[in-house]
């Protein structure tokens, strides 16, 4: 690491505005980056990692302001530089790759037009040369059809390809530094690998320095030379990657590392009539079948994890069970008896038995209702509770989800944290005293430590009430933690199902294998090995 210092940030302080008040969200961060070096910046949401990343470009988002410290890029003080000077640097010498390429490409222009914009505006190269250069970079990024892909609009290109195209665009002026802001977070696990590999290769090819921001340790481990851990705007620790993985010093870092330790103990095989049986269900939106002959059982006190990538039909299956999407053929049995296919045909009692918890607690809770009514309404509706009895029941439920009733009962969802909101979703489902709860990606929007709490809570409640869970997820780590049985879906079909132990032990179906092998591991060499083994296999 004896190379020149490219970026030096000292004592960086940034404030964010809420209403009329400013609060500090970055509290004195130091950061040094050498030429050609990749720094991993990790932390949970609210750690300030993106803010720091943008500050490295001398940029603060609307509603933020840099209040202290210095940012020296190649000797230029970005805090003192004029806007024009900063504009000359941005895109030309410092580039940025955003989390969602789909949102960060302008939908109105073709990819190659957007590629060429920065080089032409900054006077690095002519439009013609930029176009040739773009095609060359697309090829290097292993994009399919590199000659033609640039002439498509963003919506015509898949997410993984867009992310690579955006990396290529960031490279267009051959910058000295690229900020990667969670570039793979929005991608499916199998796509993530390809993008990660492409990013790593291109950065190495051009010897570009990078700041790689993510909340996923295993991902950053594949790309970064050093890792810096942030918590609430402050640095926790910084160390070379291998050292950080093997021997974290701080308790917080250790707790981050320990998240994946929770696992539900092995359960004996379930017997008797399943609570819910999905029997040969085929369902369609319009004329396009989205489910084909899907069958599986869910027993009381057991958790069935339904796994698959986006578009595999996981959530559609849930819609069939709840009656929102009546199947074309097949049936859903409840305790052995068929449920009316459509929601309208079901009795209140049948509705009560199947409850649902959603991925986005933000949209699943009516923001204008107090917790009292949010949680109380099912109890009032299904169980006929009123007045004091209802109030007591709501308080009990709040206790069950570990929120202090007196403090929370009259709050609005907007006044809660993400994890707390998800707990309210759980309480609302519990209030109906159902037999089956469908959990649709309930943890995927949460930070890892919070996820852990939710999973533990769900596990505890299952023990207490003998609930059956149908757990929809794309995250195999979560499956490992909570499932008794696993159903793997791909393109509307069940391709494999069985007890968890069997599913995680070879041999697998090829797709299951692909899914499993794509889960990043906490090993800086994992990606290299995986790519080598896949290359060997093909």
């Amino acid at each position, binding site marked *: 690491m004896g190379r020149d210092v490219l970026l030096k940030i000292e004592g960086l302080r940034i404030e964010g505005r809420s*209403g009329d008040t400013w609060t500090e969200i970055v509290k004195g961060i130091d950061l040094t980056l050498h030429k050609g070096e990749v720094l991993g910046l990790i932390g949970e949401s609210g750690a300030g990692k993106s803010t720091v990343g943008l500050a490295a470009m001398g940029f603060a988002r609307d509603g933020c302001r840099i209040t202290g410290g210095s940012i020296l890029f190649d000797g230029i003080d970005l805090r003192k530089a004029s806007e024009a000077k900063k504009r000359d640097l941005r895109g030309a010498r410092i580039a940025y790759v955003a989390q969602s390429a789909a949102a960060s490409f302008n939908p109105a222009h073709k990819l190659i037009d957007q590629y060429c914009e920065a080089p032409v505006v900054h006077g690095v190269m002519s439009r013609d040369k930029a176009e040739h250069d773009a095609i060359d970079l697309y090829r290097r990024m292993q994009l399919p059809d590199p000659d033609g892909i640039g002439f498509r609009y963003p919506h015509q290109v898949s997410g993984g390809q867009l992310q690579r195209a955006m990396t290529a665009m960031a490279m267009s002026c051959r910058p000295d530094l690229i900020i990667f802001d969670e570039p793979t977070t929005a991608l499916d696990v199998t796509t993530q690998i390809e993008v990660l590999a492409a990013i790593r290769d291109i950065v190495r090819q051009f010897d570009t320095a990078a700041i790689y921001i993510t909340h996923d340790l295993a991902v950053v481990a594949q790309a970064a030379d050093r890792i810096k851990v942030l918590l609430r705007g402050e640095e926790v620790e910084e160390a070379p990657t291998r050292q950080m993985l093997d021997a974290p010093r701080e308790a917080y870092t250790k707790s981050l590392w320990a998240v994946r330790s929770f696992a539900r103990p092995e359960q004996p095989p379930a017997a008797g009539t399943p609570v819910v049986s999905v029997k040969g269900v085929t369902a369609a939106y319009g004329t396009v079948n989205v489910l084909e002959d899907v069958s599986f059982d869910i027993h009381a006190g057991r958790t069935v994890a339904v796994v698959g990538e986006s578009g595999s039909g996981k959530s559609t299956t849930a819609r069939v069970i709840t009656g929102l999407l009546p199947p074309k053929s097949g049936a859903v049995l409840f305790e052995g008896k068929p449920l009316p296919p459509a929601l309208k045909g079901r009795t209140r009692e049948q509705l009560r038995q199947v409850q649902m918890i959603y991925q986005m607690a933000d*949209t*699943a809770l009516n923001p204008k209702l107090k917790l009292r009514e949010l949680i109380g309404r099912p109890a009032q509706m299904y169980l006929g509770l009123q007045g004091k009895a209802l109030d007591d029941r709501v308080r009990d439920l709040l206790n069950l989800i570990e929120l202090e009733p007196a403090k929370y009962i009259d709050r609005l969802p907007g006044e809660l944290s993400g994890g707390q909101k998800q707990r309210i979703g759980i309480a609302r489902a519990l209030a109906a005293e159902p037999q089956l709860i469908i959990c649709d990606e309930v943890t995927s929007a949460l930070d890892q430590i919070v996820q852990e709490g939710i999973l533990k809570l769900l596990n505890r409640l299952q023990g207490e009430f003998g609930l059956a869970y149908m757990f929809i997820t794309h995250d195999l780590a979560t499956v490992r933690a909570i499932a008794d049985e696993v159903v793997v879906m791909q393109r509307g079909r069940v391709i494999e199902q069985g007890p968890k132990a069997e599913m995680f032990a070879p041999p697998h179906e090829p797709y299951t294998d692909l899914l499993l092998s794509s889960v990043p591991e906490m090993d800086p060499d994992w990606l290299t090995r995986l790519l080598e083994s896949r290359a060997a296999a093909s």
Partner: protein
Amino acid sequence: MGFAASIILGLAGLFALAWVLRLAVRRALTGHARSIANDMPLTAAFGILVILIYAIVAIAAPALAPFPEREIVGGQFQPWSAEHLLGTDRIGRDMLSRLIYGARNTVGIAFVTTALAFVVGSVLGIWAALTGGWIDQALSRFVDALMAIPALIFSLLLLTIFGTSVVTLVLVIAAVDATRVFRLARAVAQGIVVMDYIEAAKLRGEGSWFLIRREILPNAMAPLVAEFGLRFCFVFLAISSLSFLGLGIQPPTADWGSMVKDNATLITFGDITPLLPAGCIALLTVAVNFVVDWQLYRASGLKEQ
């Protein structure tokens, strides 16, 4: 010049008062309400203050007006004096008193009309969005058809059919405006009905009325309230346009639109008399728009500042 100066002074005074008011409200309130007040720009405070003043004037018109609304109390077009602060009108009625009663009549009628349009339009609009299917299609196409006929012309036609009493005026303008509200309410509700909490409530087995009332309406309030403000202004101006064409609020009821129109020939000679009622209309419209802007800004959560 004295007139222009007094207007500028008056507006400045209102702004100052609004500033003081906002400060006082911030001190007095706590919690969520206070954070709203903290967020409030000065223009919004000004708007709220103006609306409050209008409301008070409208409600307390008989107590505030020095003379009765219709009584001839002086000569024709008397100048401003101590007795008649704003002079008298074309048949010798007190201008100030008529302006004050005009607040009650014009604002009151516009308010009732807008409220009616909103109740009908938003309930139907939300219901259409919630129900979907052919009901939604039928209602939407019908409303599209009604909207294709220009509002002023349609009102004119209906008023000619049903005659020009205050009741028909209110009903006709409300009916015409309800179509616009329907469109907005439906669009807003369409954004809400796809939310998971609506699905959750449907899964729970809630009926349509509960969904509209408890789940959708509270979340559609912000844009609807903003639209209410704008609609209110449009209704206001529509009534004065109809008065201009002779179909609005009928004399001798004091109404700003008619008062502008009745004195319109004076504008030709640069006389400021018609400015007073027109100014009253404009001030309220601007005030409402300030509040609406603020509401929209809050609703969108856009960090503009």
